């Protein structure tokens, strides 16, 4: 086979591209196109702010019942005793409610951060926390762009509290507790593809009611919980975050590790040998 200059470069390019793609595939085995996670669509237009989901969540997870009337600072936050909260905002379209809980990212920063795989992205979709693996370093909290994992600071045997999409209920074929019990049908449980379809349908059928944006479709590289609302999400206290995966931010560094591990010792040994003969020192 003869190989001219152009051909050589073609081969080089194809090989390079194949290598690059191959590397990417290896890095994210469960890319969002190949696996269809389960998730929930939260429709802020339908939510009437009854806080019922907060009570259902607390009951399902053995947490103390919330008191939404009592703790009413401007914005309530999820905490080590509240895995979900519903907040009320005064917007350009009147009062709008917004629910907060773990978004269950397709590529979760918390799971990538976890050095013991205690934070784990299940194949079904939920991101779960496993007590027997966790060493309580709280790196998941540092990394999560949504500030979801909460730590029991006042316990000698602290746990990380976060929504696990009722993983145990999911395993028996049930929907999460909050979805089952929502009286206003504001929560819609299904595969991620089905959620996107449903969200688009609702926006298209009622363009006046909905702001044309599906939050979570691309945020943080895509999340399993997605939101639609009557107003832009900036009005609901939701900060804009990057539209690509968070674990990807550390990929460059992690990829450099094997190279350094191979090249540095070789280089150092080389310098050591090169400087040896010219200037011998008495070894200790």
């Amino acid at each position, binding site marked *: 086979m003869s190989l001219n200059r152009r051909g050589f470069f073609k081969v080089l390019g194809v090989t390079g591209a194949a290598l690059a793609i191959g590397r990417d595939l290896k890095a994210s085995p469960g890319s969002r196109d190949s696996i269809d996670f389960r998730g929930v669509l939260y429709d802020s237009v339908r939510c009437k702010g009854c806080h019922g989901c907060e009570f259902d969540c607390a009951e399902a997870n053995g947490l103390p019942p919330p008191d939404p009337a009592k703790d009413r600072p401007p914005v309530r936050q999820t905490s080590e005793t509240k895995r979900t909260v519903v907040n009320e905002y005064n917007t350009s379209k009147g009062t709008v409610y917004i629910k907060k809980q773990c978004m269950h990212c397709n590529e979760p920063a918390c799971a990538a*951060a976890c*050095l013991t795989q205690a934070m784990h992205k299940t194949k079904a979709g939920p991101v779960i926390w496993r007590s027997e*693996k966790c060493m*309580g370093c709280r790196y998941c909290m540092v990394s999560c762009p949504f500030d979801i994992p909460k730590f029991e600071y006042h316990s000698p045997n602290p746990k990380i509290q976060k929504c696990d999409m009722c993983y145990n209920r999911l395993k028996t074929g049930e929907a999460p507790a909050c979805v089952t019990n929502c009286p206003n049908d504001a929560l819609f449980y299904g595969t991620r593809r089905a959620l996107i379809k449903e969200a688009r349908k609702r926006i298209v059928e009622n363009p006046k009611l909905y702001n044309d944006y599906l939050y979570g479709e691309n945020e943080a590289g895509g999340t399993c919980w997605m939101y639609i609302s009557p107003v832009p999400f900036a009005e609901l206290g939701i900060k804009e*975050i990057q539209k690509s995966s968070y674990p990807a931010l550390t990929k460059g560094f992690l990829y450099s590790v094997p190279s350094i591990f191979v090249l540095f010792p070789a280089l150092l040994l080389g*310098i050591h040998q090169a400087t040896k003969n010219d200037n011998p020192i008495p070894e200790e």
Partner: protein
Amino acid sequence: MNETIPAPNDNDGKPIWKFLLGELKPKGKIFTPFNIISVPVILLGLVIIVIRFWKGIGAVTNLTQEVPWGLWIGFDVVTGVAFAGGAYVMTFIVYILKNNQYKSIVRVTVLNGFLAYVFYAGALLLDLGRPWNVINPIIGNNFGVNSVLFLVAWHFMLYMIAQLIEFSPAIAEWLGAKRAHKILSGMTIAAVIFGITLSTLHQSGLGALYLMAKEKIHPLWYSEFIPIMFFVSSVFAGLSMVIFEGSISHKVFGKQISEKDHKDQKGIVLGLAKICAGTMFAYFFLQLLVFIHNHHYDLLNTPMGYWFLLEMFGFVFLPMVLFFISYRTNNILLVQIASIMTILGIILNRLNISVIGFRWNAPVHYVPSWMEIVVTLTVLFVEIWVFRWVINRMPVLRGSPSWAKH
């Protein structure tokens, strides 16, 4: 600190356990200013540590759900490890580049580095909520290999072993173990090469820990180049610490140091000043490039912007110039001033990323509790106690026993 009495370099004739028991006894005066200050602090710190394990981390720290890493990580670990960087730089210069000028300070630098890592790893255990699971990333099937922290944890562990091997000939000389000394000395170069590689990766890895906290760190400090910045700055952070500690050691442990080493010290300090000036220039230039690249000009005219400028000009550029001048004018005092400023600058930089600039826009700011500060001081003081114990017994600053030289 106490006056030092030269230890016997040989334990000939005594059984080993008797020798070790004898060595455990304190040497020198007991009521020194350092002891009088450090003992109450350490005792108080131990009480706080008991409370921490009994009532939880929240009982003694001001950590919040928004700021989960405070002083114990931001200062003890992230800052402390940068200062321990002197060990890998010095071993590189002496064992790889074979620059014998610095040979007399390698041992004390490696000892400092080793103790720093041991105690910072210890401080890390205090910060872990579930420390009994710390074994998980080491054994078992729980390898979170995608985690930067996994990498850093393993590198800490392996680097501690490498440093122990680098230092072990001194232990063998102390115990008079001649055969062990020969074997351990033979492992030095391998440990050095391994250690430098590990250091490069975990010094930068500590910076890479913050890469995913993209929106949480003030944009003037966050960039994808944090790992490289951390690595480059660890070079002059470590060397500034070597200069600073050296100037104290030469006063406190002066009796152990030979006339020749005392005389050589000036040349060593000036040489280190030169390296500091060079790496600081590279670091400053990198920071400048990243700043221009990120287009955050508007942020300079804000309180955080002034803070950033203070760090960059007051604690990087200025000490760099001072290092340069001191090297040109053979001014040791100026080197020491510059090294202290550099140390402050590194503390500023690491805290700006891990604590001060972390959630800079949050309504409630994290300020460490007095108990967190006491525990940090406890860790530091116990480290100095162990350091002093070793210096007074093993041939670290003083020369090796005659049988170990050949």
